[in-house]
């Protein structure tokens, strides 16, 4: 488990992000990662021993499709940090991500299905 303490090591000086040995030198997230982007781990991971604890926790949680927002909440790190970790995993081919066309308004069929679902709650 990662905890906030791993990330913020100087309360007085304001939040400081832990050096990124663990983000493999990558510092900018891939563009296709949004709050509700669904992330799914591949069944076999390329080289588990080269992954950090945080990467592995993401893979465990993404055995079933999980959103970027949920991953950030469970790992207790800011969104940009989880996006960077996910970008590593994307590059390694250890996850796939899935988005609706980001800016498109949901169409009638999708809205009808959501309406039926909410009514049935």
């Amino acid at each position: 488990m990662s905890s906030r303490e791993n990330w913020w090591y100087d309360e007085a000086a304001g939040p400081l992000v832990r050096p990124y040995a663990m983000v493999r030198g990558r510092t900018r997230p891939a563009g296709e990662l949004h709050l509700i982007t669904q992330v799914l781990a591949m069944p076999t991971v390329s080289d588990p021993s080269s992954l950090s604890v945080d990467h592995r926790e993401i893979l465990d949680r993404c055995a079933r499709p999980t959103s970027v927002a949920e991953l950030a909440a469970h790992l207790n790190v800011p969104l940009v940090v989880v996006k960077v970790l996910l970008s590593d995993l994307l590059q390694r081919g250890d996850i796939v991500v899935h988005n609706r066309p980001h800016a498109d308004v949901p169409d009638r069929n999708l809205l009808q299905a959501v309406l039926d679902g909410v009514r049935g709650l």
Partner: protein
Amino acid sequence: MAFEDSDVPTAVKIVVAGGFGTGKTTLVGAVSEIPPLRTEELLTEAGTYVDDLAGIEGKETTTVALDFGRITINQRIVLYLFGTPGQNRFWFMWDELATGAIGAVVLVDTRRLDSSFPSIDFFERRNIPFLVAVNMFDDSYDYSIDELRSALDLDSRIPVVKCDARVRQSGKEVLVGLIQHAMSRLEPAAR
């Protein structure tokens, strides 16, 4: 090994907005299948996104929290509900939340109507479907829907409903109202 699209659900979202303390988190919690979760955006001191961790050490940063919940609609669709941050000044975050959303619920507390004006303006200007849900706090005066509509200066097409954000059934009806409103704005279905 490739995944079929059907292995991953389609994700949609609804924004829950409104002034400070109007019951946004309460409403999300009432309808969500999980206790509301909290994520944080990392912002620079100037109030823009930190979009690169390089050189972040030693820089002043701040965070803005988003509360959200989830409703599994069926095996293929999952709905997320995002409560907007209390501080209204981070409009760029609202833009991201609203992009591609089904629409928004704007919660209103009749004791402080004006606190929800900026939310209403935001969705009106961007022509995003929204519904106004009047959260009935115990000591609030029970105005009529017409009185509220005119006090809020709302277009007659914008639905206004009363709700109790703590009650699941009430929250559910609010969501149904919003989705129906969003559908009413689409082109008529081809027959």
